[in-house]
């Protein structure tokens, strides 16, 4: 950090020099920049104006130490500043030096890049071809305009310092800006806590006064709902594993076939689960489970609860008025979801004299206190409550839920590879990987001089192509490929994609044996200058770009896991190496045949008259001569797909291990 401060001073000087050389327009821009710095400052974000002496003072203070209360806060702001400053300075240096080099006409590539980039890595790489002076000037202007606009926008962006409570009672604090989604915040928290990153990790908002709880959806922005909190609110944000968040994708039958008896639901095959997810989330329209139940509704302003027959539809919750039929046209709309969120109610039996404690609530997110505009509903049991809350979420958020799930699945797959790597001996794959507990060594690590280099982002940096931005991961799978298109499957999707990952760690120096228990090896020191601990607000991609290119792969591969089995796995994969993303959906055919045992191609709908006699499968006894026998192609006989894990628990690690064991066993 101290070196950073020194550096900044230097840069301030060079920057002043730069300004002296500038023409009018440039001068004007620097003015503008200054103004905008002031603006940011006035917004309370304490972006330190680069040229002003106080900034250096502050940094001195910082490097000496600060009070405990503000520690995290200062740290955060400072890192934020670091990132910003780095950008700014690097930019200026790069241009200036290019200019200088051009003027002297004696420059070499090395002299251009050295001072600036070695010190502060995140720079857009200088153009390799030598631009003319005009071009350079134009470029400089453009850069500055861009910078100015960015700063202007930055100044308007709201940021909050948020405390996330963990299960063990500790807390993590992060700065969150309003453009960040819950997903991004979760990723940051993964880095901070080194948890297992499974798909259940969630952020929950609790409302103390109303005794409510809600899991944020991964695509939501975090800051907005937090701004609705009142000043004196005792609301909290929890960082927790919530099974119910993605339960519908793991066990869709519990939601879409809820009417069936429990045993049938339990026995359902993984293939049928896939099909259900497919049917309901991958078609042109998202299908909401058609729920119907007698729920208790708390009457406005009264203490009594009244029973009504409610139905859930994509367009809202309806009830059947007294004496009317259940036909759609007679239904009365109870609520629509545009402006409402659904919350779990806690302990409503004592608070509101509810018939049971299985309550959920619909309210406008801004409402924080008791109000007649809050709808309280009470279910007979926990299952019904989960059905309804999940159903409402599907109706409200639609395909976003599924996209969130897929994204988090990918995230989990990446990190499970890491976990696997660092603890190769963990031979018990079926137990869910340790979560909070696993964190403790890392916390210790966090106090090391290189504060939490952010293993995840570092990983990505070294993986040849960075993962695509969120949006690209998400497009719903093309309907074409194959019948049971499995892109989403936790069980099958994960083992494959994660395999290429196994090779990646070769980019790192092999971890010293003593550190075996630390999940991620600390990245090589030079990277450390990149902002630690806190990803700068702009989407993570920029972060990746700023990392130096991966070192050439080491020729020796001292990796512990049995290379033979991997080699074999690789054969069944599309050429794996450079692909860190999980996009390559497992080729449909294998799954199909694996799952269905090669069902016969179906008959076309208009069976030619000739087929009338005996097309289909010879099935001797008892059939009248004239009957046509047809096998419904896909469904009939199905053997368990070879890759499938036993419990279908969705635990990626176990799936992976199982798959590997099977492979190994096969050879």
């Amino acid at each position, binding site marked *: 950090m101290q070196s950073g401060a020194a550096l900044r001073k230097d840069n301030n000087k060079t920057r002043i020099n730069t300004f002296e050389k500038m023409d009018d*327009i440039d001068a*004007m821009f620097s003015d503008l920049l200054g103004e905008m710095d002031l603006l940011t400052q006035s917004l309370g974000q304490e972006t330190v104006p680069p040229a002003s002496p106080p900034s250096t003072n502050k940094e001195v203070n910082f490097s000496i130490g600060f009070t405990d209360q503000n520690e995290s806060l200062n740290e955060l702001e400072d890192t934020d500043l670091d990132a910003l400053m780095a950008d700014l300075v690097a930019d200026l240096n790069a241009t200036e030096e290019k200019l200088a080099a051009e003027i002297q006409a004696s420059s070499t590539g090395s002299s251009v890049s050295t001072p600036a980039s070695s010190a502060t890595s995140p720079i857009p790489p200088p153009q390799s071809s030598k631009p003319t002076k005009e071009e350079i000037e134009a470029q400089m202007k453009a850069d500055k305009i861009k910078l*100015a*606009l960015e700063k*202007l926008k930055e100044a308007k962006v709201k940021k909050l310092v948020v405390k996330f409570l963990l299960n063990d009672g500790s807390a993590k604090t992060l700065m969150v800006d309003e453009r960040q989604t819950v997903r991004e915040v979760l990723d940051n928290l993964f880095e901070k806590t080194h948890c297992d990153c499974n798909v259940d990790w969630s952020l929950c908002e609790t409302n103390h006064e109303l005794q409510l709880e809600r899991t944020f959806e991964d695509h939501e922005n975090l800051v907005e709902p937090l701004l609705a909190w009142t000043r004196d609110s005792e609301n909290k944000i929890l960082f927790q594993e919530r099974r119910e968040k993605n339960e519908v994708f793991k066990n869709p039958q519990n939601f879409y076939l809820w*009417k069936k008896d429990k045993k049938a639901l339990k026995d359902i095959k993984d293939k*049928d689960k896939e*099909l259900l997810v497919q*049917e309901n989330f*991958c078609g*042109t*329209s*998202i*299908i*909401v489970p*058609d729920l119907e139940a007698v729920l208790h509704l708390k009457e406005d302003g009264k203490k009594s609860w009244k029973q009504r027959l409610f139905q859930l*539809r*994509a*367009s809202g919750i*309806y009830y059947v008025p007294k004496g009317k039929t*259940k*036909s*759609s*046209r007679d239904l009365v*709309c109870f609520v*629509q979801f545009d*402006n409402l969120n659904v919350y779990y109610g806690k302990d409503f039996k004592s608070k509101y004299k509810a018939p049971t404690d299985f309550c959920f609530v619909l309210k*406008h*997110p*801004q*409402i924080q*206190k008791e*109000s*007649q505009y*809050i709808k309280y509903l009470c279910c007979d049991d926990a299952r019904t409550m989960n059905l309804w809350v999940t159903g409402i979420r599907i109706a409200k958020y639609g395909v976003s839920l599924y996209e969130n799930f897929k994204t988090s699945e990918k995230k989990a797959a990446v990190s499970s590879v890491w976990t696997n790597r660092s603890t190769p001996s963990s031979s018990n794959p079926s137990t869910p990987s340790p979560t909070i507990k696993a964190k403790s060594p890392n916390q210790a690590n966090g106090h090391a001089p290189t504060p939490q280099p952010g293993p995840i982002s570092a990983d990505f940096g070294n993986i040849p192509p960075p993962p695509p931005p969120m949006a690209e991961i998400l497009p719903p799978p093309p*309907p*074409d490929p194959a*019948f049971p*298109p499995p892109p989403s499957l936790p069980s099958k999707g994960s083992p494959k994609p994660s395999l290429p990952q196994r090779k990646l760690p070769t980019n790192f120096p092999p971890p010293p044996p003593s550190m075996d228990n630390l999940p991620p090896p600390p990245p090589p020191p030079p990277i450390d200058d990149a902002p630690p601990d806190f990803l700068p607000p702009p989407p993570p991609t920029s972060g990746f770009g700023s990392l130096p290119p991966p070192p050439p792969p080491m020729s020796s591969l001292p990796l512990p896991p049995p290379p033979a089995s991997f080699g074999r796995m690789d054969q069944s994969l599309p050429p794996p190496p450079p692909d860190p993303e999980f996009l390559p959906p497992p080729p449909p055919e294998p799954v199909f045949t694996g799952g269905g045992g090669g069902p016969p191609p*179906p*008959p076309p*709908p*208009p*069976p*030619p*008259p000739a087929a009338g006699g005996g097309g289909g*499968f010879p*099935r001797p006894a008892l*059939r*009248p*001569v004239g009957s*046509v*026998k*047809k*096998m*419904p*192609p*896909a*469904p*009939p006989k199905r053997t368990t797909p070879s890759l499938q894990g036993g419990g279908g628990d969705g635990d990626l690690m176990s799936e992976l291990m199982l798959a590997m064991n099977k492979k190994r066993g096969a050879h």
Partner: protein
Amino acid sequence: MAAWDLAILVEDLGPDAPPVTLSVASDLHVGGVILKLVEKTQIKRDWSDHALWWEQKQQWLLRTSWTLEKYGIHADARLLFMPQHKPVRLCLPSGITLRLLACFSNPVFQTVMGICRMLNIRRPEELSLLRPIEHKKKKKAKDLDEEIYDLTEVPLSSASRPCLYNGMPAHFADSSQMEAIYKMLSVTQPPPAPEVIAKQYRPASVVDKAHIHGRWLDSSRCLMQQGIQENDQIWLRFKFFAFYDIEPKYDVVRLTQLYEQARWAILLEDIDCTEEEMMLFGALQYHISKVSQSEPQMMSSSAAMDDLESALQSLEVKMEGESSTASEMLETMTAPDLNDYLKIFRPKRLTLKGYKQYWFKFQDTSISYFKSKEESIGEPIQKINLKGCEVAPDVNMAAQKFLIRLLIPAPEGMNEVYLRCENEQQYAQWMAACRLGSKGKTLADSSFQSEIQSIRSFLAMQKSSSSSHGNVPASDESINTHSLVSPRYHKKYKPKQLTPRILDAYQNVAQLSLTDAVMRFLQIWQALPDFGLSYVVVRFKGSRKDEVLGIAPNRLIRIDLGVGDVVKTWRYNNMKQWNVNWDIRQVAIEFEGNVNIAFSCVTADCKIVHEFIGGYIFMSNTQS
């Protein structure tokens, strides 16, 4: 081999012409017969589409290499020599009738493929033909003078491989007339007059719906075999409700016709929905008709629209790069505002009784108000952020009442605030601003002007419908809202009562492009609980009463007619096999877990049920 005389009627010689008699031997093949026949008629023309039809056997003699003996034809056979393609009147899902040449000799499945190729509809397997519902005598007379679009001139060969020209198949680019037909196919029809909706046949019960499904033609037999005559009317409809791979760029006609079928299903209550859903469907229809009138080419050029987002973004970047002065930049980043005197009323507050006039300022997403214009530089009396609020209109044109009802969320609950405007103009502006604000958008948003426009056109609708009691011809400016909802709501609400409700739903869809709006309509349709169900009245084995079998893309359901409830659901993926006993006309299905069901079909041939089930399984296997 002995020669004998074979009499053949040649259709082209006219209905009264005597049969042409040929002297043939039993070992002569059909091709030879045709050759002889053509020679004898001495007519020079293209006979390539002609073939022999054997009337007694109801069979085409299409295998020209087969001998008469092999076909079993003797001197008593009544043979007819005629073209395989004949004109039919094809009623599209949009209700428009086309006259075109359909193949009478191939199985209907292939006939449909041919028709779809000609009309540029992809995925023909989703569609099929059905017999129309018989009209009463006097309606028939009226049917005749409806406009029929003639496509019989389209050469059969050109339809085989459509090459696109100007975004449409080449045969549509031949003349402006043909182009007009293509436009009719690919652009949604304006909302029908309420009387037209009311006059249409509406299935009143699930049994009525089941009867409609009894009309599907057999896909594996040809039109000729199913008693369809030249110039008969047949319906082309989407039959299998599993629509894969919809690509607006290529599926202009398919999407349009699908939308039309969905729209009519809603309007005629072929599928049930709630009142709220009906209003949303109404709003979407209104929007779609409005947008397609203003930009009729949009559907075909929607490819460009796909990139609109990115185009706008790059534009933004460009502008960022170009704006060189600070003031300019600031200008682009600060939104315009709206200022005026309005009256405010807060029903829940005792302090403000009645409406009080203030100077209002709309900025970003907030409304502030001041004592007067002069004091508007200082601190406002109150500033209300509209983000996330609910906005409802309360307008009565006759009484000149222009009220905006706001429900403003606050930590304590929702606060009611009414804003009263003086006139239409003011109302439209402020209403539009409030709507945008409630969605977190500022006045700088591009949709502001169009929002104002749509509010004004809705006001116009209210004006016209209140002045001339419903029977207004739908002009450009105003649509009778009864055209947008099913007749049930004609009785329930007057047009002017419907207007605000549809407008209310409309605000959520007003920004959609034409393609998006059509897609949204289809999505909401597909999300209805009863979507995709085709009904057949059946008698289950061992049961003594009629029940209804619903066939959906992924399951079968059993509906108790008495209660109207779904009694049982079977999913195809649990199905092991199904069989049809053609002798006793019974369908038997076996599911996993030793579940066996068997039923005979009452309202439809069991072939229809057989085709439905097979078709859905086929489609889900090949296409998803």
